[in-house]
């Protein structure tokens, strides 16, 4: 209990932490964007009337959601050289793994959003002569978005939290930067506490953005 905290090593090696923040933001940004795109496409396939489209999409969701993320990450890390003949870069492996894993979760969120819109909305749109794609675009999606924002925010946060796992294949994100700083001065308490605080701050900002979107989309607010 007599331990005196000393953050000078953190300040000395802050450039490592800056790089770590950059690494986390880059990996989070591209992975979240790609995962959402995958989620949208898979959701459309999953809800399609044709079994040939919906079954593979269902299998995709079940497969990626039921295997621990770190196992998928290592698998891809080792599979990339075998499949492409190229050396696996930690960033590429982490990016692919996060996009696929996140994509499976986003698929289900989008699907729940679409299916949460009452059946009568479809029927009403049909009655006034709208086609499938205009019904989706002008009637269903605007209503679905409102339901989708809260779970979407939660899942984006979960995905950003998972970027820390990329440190295990030596991708230079925040947790990895924390390890580098801790090894420099043997001040693990200060280094890892700083990393934890920085990550929680980042996640709080994302959570606030989500809450802001939610309030903007509320009908009463307009």
């Amino acid at each position, binding site marked *: 209990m007599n331990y005196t905290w000393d953050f000078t090593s953190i300040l000395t090696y802050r450039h490592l932490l800056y790089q770590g923040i950059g690494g986390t933001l880059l990996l989070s940004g591209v992975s979240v964007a790609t995962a959402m795109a995958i989620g949208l496409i898979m959701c459309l396939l999953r809800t399609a009337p044709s079994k040939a489209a919906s079954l593979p999409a269902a299998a995709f969701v079940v497969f990626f959601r039921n295997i621990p993320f770190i196992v998928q990450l290592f698998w891809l890390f080792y599979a990339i050289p075998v499949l492409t*003949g190229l050396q696996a870069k930690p960033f590429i492996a982490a990016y692919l793994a996060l996009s696929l894993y996140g994509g499976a979760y986003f698929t289900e969120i989008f699907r729940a959003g679409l299916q949460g819109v009452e059946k009568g909305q479809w029927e009403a749109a049909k009655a006034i002569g709208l086609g499938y794609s205009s019904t989706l675009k002008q009637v269903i999606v605007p209503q679905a978005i409102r339901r989708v924002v809260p779970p979407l925010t939660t899942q984006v946060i979960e995905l950003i939290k998972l970027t820390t796992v990329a440190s295990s294949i030596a991708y230079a994100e925040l947790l990895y930067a924390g390890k580098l700083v*801790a090894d420099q001065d043997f001040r*693990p308490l200060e280094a890892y506490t700083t990393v934890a605080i920085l990550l929680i701050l980042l996640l709080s900002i994302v959570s606030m953005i989500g809450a802001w979107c939610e309030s903007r989309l509320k009908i009463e607010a307009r």
Partner: protein
Amino acid sequence: MGSAMNYIWDFSAVWRNGGMLLDGFANTALLTATCLVLALPLGLLLALMRLSNARPLRFLGLAYVNFFRAAPALVLIVWFYFAFPVIIGVEMNAFEASILAIGLQSAAYMAEVFRGGMQAIRRGQWEAARAIGLSSADTIRFVILPQAVRQMIPVFLIRFAELVKATTLAGVIAYGETVYMANELSTQTYRPLETFTAIALLFFVLIFGITSFSKLLEKRLIAGR
């Protein structure tokens, strides 16, 4: 592109050393079970705090749940392994650090399962219990929990599957669970792809089994209502 076609899968090394992977699974099971022993009572306590009438208790419960749900699991694991011992002045092995990190986090998620289950019980049940003179502790114990637990089981199973997934991160601080053993096996046999394919399939069967069972129970509960 040629190499993809040329790669010859060979699982014989994985079979020959299957014992290592089994050891890993035993350690995964041990860690999961120990975390559960910590997370269930603590989760129930936190849920009761969050539903309590006392403001400080409600606030503490909420702060705990929010903090542990916000922190990335791996950061908690690494923090408890490398940083926490500096504060308490006692060395901690990878198993102990993993129990604290994963168990304390799981408690936050379990608290929300308990709270959700108890809040789903209709108000009339509370009022009826009060009318027949039960104290609030007795109401929770004899009226609310027995009904809530039944409804909680499907969500609890999903959380349990998430717990199993979280334990795979303990390999990062060299706790000998399945992923750690798979990495060890890979360096010995130079067959990482086969090794990780094998454990991915094993995990899939286990976790998909749990989540499917959860869905089945949920359907039954809805049908039984």
